[in-house]
């Protein structure tokens, strides 16, 4: 482990009491931040400091703190999840920052993700998209043996690549149109790569895309900012799969 350097930082953090409050950036200083801390641990230190001063702590979503639950959702200096590629902000460590640095921390910005408080947003639109069709319609019980239907390894791997999505919404936050294409495409591709996903393939794509439009997400203009910030590095190639499926479904062809 490298030596334990300490950083002094200036933070500009979005504070907003509730959905109705217009919100503003507030500036705080934190001192003696260890480079081995995670970004969220640095915010814990700030919150301890605020509590001691009688100021309400900054609200931010987090749970697993190991990059898998998709709860954490901070835009750090304009980049969703911050500067390290393929990394959620809970896994970002302070060794990537410099002493004296100024850091701006904001919530995801998108019409479909209204701010709840401070850095916390409402992402229930994602759940509603899955509810519209992001599943295989199979009830519990009566499934055939797991090995009854072999799945070529490369298909299983490709399905897994897409299924790795953690539903954090960084893709939406990074897109200037606040498009949810990558999120939707990831689920469509995951199920489209597997034999179990075939029977409902077309209906699924149409239903999910319709739900996405209804939630107020924007269109995709092929800038690929989504792929650049995706902590699971989901490929924009999934969007091609989705487009093909919706197009075919729309045409009623095979």
């Amino acid at each position, binding site marked *: 482990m490298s030596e334990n350097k300490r950083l002094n930082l200036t933070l500009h953090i979005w504070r907003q009491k509730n959905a109705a409050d217009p919100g503003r950036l507030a500036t705080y200083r934190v001192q003696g931040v260890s480079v081995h801390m995670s970004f969220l641990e640095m915010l814990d230190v700030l919150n301890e400091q605020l509590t001691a001063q009688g100021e309400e702590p900054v609200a931010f979503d987090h749970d*697993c703190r*190991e990059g898998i*639950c998709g709860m954490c959702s901070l835009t750090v200096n304009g980049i969703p999840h911050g500067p390290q590629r393929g990394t959620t902000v809970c896994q970002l*460590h302070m060794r990537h920052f410099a002493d004296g640095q100024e850091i701006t921390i904001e919530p995801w910005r998108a019409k479909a993700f209204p701010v709840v408080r401070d850095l916390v947003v409402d992402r229930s639109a994602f759940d509603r998209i899955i509810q519209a069709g*992001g599943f295989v319609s*199979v009830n519990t019980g009566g*499934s055939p043996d797991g090995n009854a239907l072999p799945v070529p390894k490369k298909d*299983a791997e490709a*399905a897994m690549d897409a*299924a790795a999505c953690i539903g954090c919404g960084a893709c939406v936050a990074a897109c200037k149109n606040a498009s949810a294409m990558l999120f939707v495409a990831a689920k469509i591709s995951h199920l489209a790569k597997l034999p179990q996903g075939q029977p409902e393939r077309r209906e699924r794509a149409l239903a999910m895309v319709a739900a996405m439009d209804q939630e107020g997400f924007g269109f995709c203009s092929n800038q690929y900012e989504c792929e650049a910030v995706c902590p699971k590095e989901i490929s924009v190639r999934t969007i091609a799969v989705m487009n093909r499926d919706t197009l075919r479904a729309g045409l009623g062809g095979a």
Partner: protein
Amino acid sequence: MSVKLDAKIPSGPLEKKWEKRRFEMKLVNPANKRKYTVIVVGTGLAGSSAAASLAELGYRVKCFCFQDSPRRAHSIAAQGGINAAKNYQNDGDSVFRLFYDTVKGGDFRAREANVYRLAELSVNIIDQCVAQGVPFAREYGGYLANRSFGGAQVSRTFYARGQTGQQLLLGAYQALSRQIGLGAVQMHPRTEMLDLVVVGGQARGIVTRHLVTGKIECHVSDAVVLATGGYGNVFYLSTNAKGCNVSATYRAYKRGAAFANPCYTQIHPTCIPISGDYQSKLTLMSESLRNDGRVWVSKKKGDTRPPDQISEEERDYYLERKYPSFGNLAPRDISSRAAKEACDDGRGVGPGGRGVYLDFADAIRRLGENVIRERYGNLFDMYERITGENPYKVPMRIYPAVHYTMGGLWVDYDLMSTIPGLFVLGEANFSDHGANRLGASALMQGLADGYFIIPYTIGDYLAGTKLPKADAGHAEFKKVHSEVEERIRRLLSVKGKRSVDSFHRELGHLLWEHCGMTRSEKGLAKALELIPELREAFWKDVSVLGGGDEFNTALEKAGRVADFLEFAELLCTDARLRKESCGGHFREEHQTADGEAERDDASFCHVSAWEYAGEGKAPILNKEPLVFENVHLAQRSYK
């Protein structure tokens, strides 16, 4: 003694018990199912699978979780895999072997009948998940792949890279989402259960707080299912997600549900060591790594040389040395204690000497870096992100950390607690893992409970029980509602100086010190002296800013920590009374000459089920004797 512990284990041979029980059960007519409302608290593997399956059958389901989406339940973080007795590898596995391994792994402190059923159902789980589109790892021929986990000599663990929990949970979440979309499940995310409502001796609903608006609400039902996960966070530092808590189960305990074996906690041997006092959680490095990694420390005390300068002869591969037949795959409790022993002996590595090496050099030489990357790439990346060190080049440093809790609410064979109508699934119950859980069996248990057990047993309860009409206007609902409000008001009105986290950290430290990897009469007595003091300090000096009718993270945490501060005492009381060593519960006074756990079957072959006796009163101990008819009670040996 007022609660009666009737496990309701069906008679007859082990292999026929579940079938017999299912046949005896009363059924609810399909048209009548929609007349029943079932509350499911929790959307992890256990809760999601239960809520989806019950809704598919036609019950009206109300489902709750505290995260912003059901998909984010802590199950999402499980890495390594899920066991099933498929015997696809033709390596000698069978339902009986999985049963036997689990009972033995649990150090003969689990119920035979429950464990056998779990092993039986394990095969259906894999089929169900495959049908949902879970992208399990495959061999080149397209068939399902397996890996090995600790405590087993067969390869029966199914996995999806290092994200098995995520993929299984997404499968269950998608099934649940389908039912939400169909209107069969009413989903309440960001809603925390703060109490259970018992009317006329039956569980009839819950009181919740909406975490965004702060609104306190009553929800009425015909049965309540708790699938709220484990209480590992009582130790503050653990591999659990930050929100994991004991509140739902502890509140149920205070309403009359017996709490079983709270002292059975699992310390996982392979986690990234603590780097500083700001540490907020510990990160697991999956047990699957021990398939290819070798654990070692220097033979010399205080050896500060970098690992590459310590020659092969100077290294102590202590697991391979002490447990030659299981080697690096010795079970968790044993591997954890062995690591502690090495560090206590002054041979630990890294800052503070609390760490041991997990070395992949041999595997990389043998298989190539690519194979290792394919197997564990995401874990290696995670390690590097956290520590800044490259584990392909230098051995990982690992140390044990609190990981799982085998204890939980007592349930009978039908997964019903001592309160009629209150069912408990997944990590929240105590049922299957005895004193130590084997790797890859929690996912199996959560899904067995939710997909394949509760859909049957809840029907039997509903069909055979008279349920008087109840609504939120009932006196009992009103009473619990106002008690919940009063408690929130109390938390907000302390207006002290110390943050909630500072109390939680102190509690965790105290428990780790006195009731962690090893326990002793002296340490436990000390803990039982310190916990009430800390609790008192909390209620005098905690600072919870903001109000109750808004999004208030400090208030959420304060409620959970207040419960941990009470529950910790129950945990230590249980640990103190269990004067034997078994599984994860290691009493220093009870060890064999070579330092292994020494069980005392004559005095402790029972489940300890604690009953709440009222504020300020000592809890009452009830015992359920454990009877072993199919396995021979033996000293666990992995040598």
